[in-house]
C-alpha cells in the first residue's frame, strides 16, 4: 500500500518537475529575446511525442518536448538542427528529460509546416541503455 502511495506522490512530483523545467526554459528564452541576445523567441511545451521512440520511463501521451521557434518565417532545416543539437549535446539536460518521462525532442517553427524529431534515448550516452539486453 505504501508503495502505491509513494507511486502517486512520485507522479505528482514528476509532474511539477516537468512543469518547472518547461517554465524555466520559457522564462530564459523570453529573457534572452527581450535583452536582444536571441533573434527568435523560443517556446517549449509538452506534446504527445512519437510512439516509436518510447522507453521505460515515457509518460503516457506526454512524451514529447517541443521547442517552437517564433521566427515569423519558416526556419530552414539547418537552423532547426542547430537548435536541436544544442539540447542533444547537453547530456545532463537530455538525461534529465529522459528521467522526467520525455522520449522525443521536437523542433519546429510557427510559420512553416516542417519540423524535426529526435529520439532522446539515442543521445543520453548512458552505457546501461546501449548495453541493455533485457530491455
Amino acid at each position: 500500500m505504501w508503495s502505491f502511495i509513494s507511486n502517486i506522490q512520485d507522479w505528482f512530483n514528476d509532474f511539477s518537475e516537468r512543469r518547472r523545467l518547461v517554465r524555466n526554459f520559457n522564462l530564459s528564452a523570453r529573457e534572452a529575446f527581450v535583452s536582444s541576445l536571441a533573434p527568435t523567441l523560443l517556446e517549449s511545451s509538452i506534446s504527445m511525442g512519437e510512439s516509436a521512440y518510447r522507453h521505460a520511463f515515457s509518460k503516457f501521451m506526454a512524451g514529447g518536448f517541443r521547442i517552437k521557434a517564433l521566427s515569423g518565417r519558416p526556419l530552414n532545416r539547418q537552423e532547426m538542427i542547430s537548435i536541436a543539437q544544442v539540447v542533444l549535446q547537453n547530456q545532463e539536460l537530455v538525461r534529465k528529460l529522459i528521467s522526467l518521462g520525455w522520449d522525443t525532442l521536437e523542433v519546429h517553427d510557427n510559420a512553416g509546416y516542417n519540423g524535426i524529431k529526435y529520439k532522446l534515448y539515442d543521445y543520453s550516452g548512458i552505457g546501461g541503455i546501449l548495453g541493455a539486453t533485457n530491455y
Partner: protein
Amino acid sequence: MDTLLQNKWLILCSVESILIIYLFIKLKKKRGAGNLEKEILKSKGSTINMTDVMNDINLAPALYKKLSRVCHPDRFAGQELESTANILFQELQQAENNYAALCKLKSQIEKQLNISIS
C-alpha cells in the same frame, strides 16, 4: 442486508485485485529497466541552468565561427604554433555548442597563440 454485505466484500476484493495487478505490472516494468533505471534516476534531481542553455543556442554559434576562423591550423602552417593551433582547434570542435567552454577556450587561444580577439 446479506446482499449488501456481500456486495461490500465483492467491491473490496475487486479493488484489491486491481491494486495487485497494478503493482505486478509496475514490478515487471522495473525489472525490465534494470541498471538503466538507476543511472537515469540519478539525473532526476540535477538542476539545469536554462540561461546557459539559451547562451548555447544563441551566442555559441557566432563565437565558434569567430574562434574557428582565428585559430584555424592553416593560418599557422609551417610555424612553431602549428601543433598548439591543432590541439586548440580540436578542443574548439568538441565545444562547438557550449558557450561557457568556448569562452574559456577564447582566453586560452589569446594566451597561447598570442592573438587578440575582439
